[in-house]
């Protein structure tokens, strides 16, 4: 049984390595990176194109109809620009699905993972495998 268990562990580790972010910079330990929180039909309220990290602010209506006000950060500006992000990639009023690694504190803040647009396109964070100039994961809308 031991080799089987070992192989399962290797497989799980291999998948985990592909799906999970490796935060090279600020605050990686602050977030729960086991499963991203999915915010369907979130409404963008503000997109701050700032250093040290761009911020996405969005309203999300939960199952009970309560509006949650979220804030999430992208990777650094340079990495984001290199994979196609600009200050107008998200605009107030956009209705999108956001994936975010939530802070362990429970506050409605987190590390941005990706955004799905209504037209079926996706943009990703620079540090979910795309911080090397798009070698491993183009963040451009596809």
């Amino acid at each position, binding site marked *: 049984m031991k*080799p*089987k268990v*070992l*192989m*399962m562990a*290797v*497989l799980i580790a*291999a*998948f985990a390595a*592909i799906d999970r972010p490796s935060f*090279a910079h*600020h*605050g990686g*330990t*602050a*977030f729960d990176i086991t499963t991203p929180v999915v915010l369907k039909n979130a409404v963008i309220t503000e997109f*701050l194109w*700032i*250093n*040290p*990290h761009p*911020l996405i*602010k969005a309203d999300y209506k939960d199952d009970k109809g309560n509006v949650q006000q979220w*804030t*999430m*950060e992208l990777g*650094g*500006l*340079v*990495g984001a*620009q*290199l*994979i196609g992000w600009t200050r107008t990639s998200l605009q107030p009023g956009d209705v999108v699905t956001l994936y975010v690694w939530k*802070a*362990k*504190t429970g*506050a409605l*803040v*987190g590390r941005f993972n990706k955004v799905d647009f209504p037209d079926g396109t996706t943009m990703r964070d*620079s540090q979910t495998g795309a*911080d*090397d*100039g*798009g*070698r*491993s*994961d*183009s963040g451009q809308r596809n």
Partner: protein
Amino acid sequence: MRRTSTVGLAGVAGVLLLSALVTAQNTAPSTAPRSPWKYYPEDARANVGPGGPAPKRDLGGTWAGESSGAGVKGPVRPEREPPLTPLGKQLWDRNKAESRGVLIADSNDPHLRYCDPFGFPRNMTDQIRAMTITSLPDRVFVLILFQTIWREIWTDGRALPANFAGRGANVHDPTYNGYSVGRWEDDYTFVAETTGMAPETWATEAGHPHSVEARVTERYHRSSKNDLTLTMTMDDPTLYTRPLKLGEIYFRWIPSQTFFNTTCIPSSLQRYLKEMADPAGGASVAR
């Protein structure tokens, strides 16, 4: 058992193949219209391999570092178990660095919390994105993208200043980048010496302290047209019992690299801390 192993290995191979296919798909040249003012992923991948022999006594050009997006390999980091004197240990313990497991909310990193300048030598080891080197007959300029910094390294044969204390017109004020002189050690190696750095800055992202008398040696070695290695040490007997290794930083020559604006704006940082980093890193968070 053997069958299980075979299935497992096949699974791993499948995952790796899938990953490689995705990578190959995403690295295909773009056919979209290009602006000469933008820096595209394919620009970052422009130079592959050594590109030929290094030119003699020439570091000129634009270089991409670890955090540039150009796939440059990561640096050898500064020593994490520094050989500290008692005073050095006192200062080291006082500095709460994020890279030593402290959350931003609890850090006292002067740059991370207040946008204070990195200062030298931290600005040559932390957040290494792009760097341009150019020269005049009597000095070499190092232009650093992150925080839009320039350093000047005098090559006219002058000696480094030594008087940073006491009173009088000949006392030299410490500066964020210190005072630098340089010379060619051989046709491919340029050596710079720097002292007089503002002691309130951290020498590294990890919070290594330094005194105003610290002396940093930079050795730039261009091994090929496209490859440059910077090796750094810091001699500061007040705080360290022997010269501290600040590490090795690798650069690739990327001629079309664009200098994005990455200046730290205090008002933006305060908003980032208040609305993002501090709520994400309260004291109750498990380390």
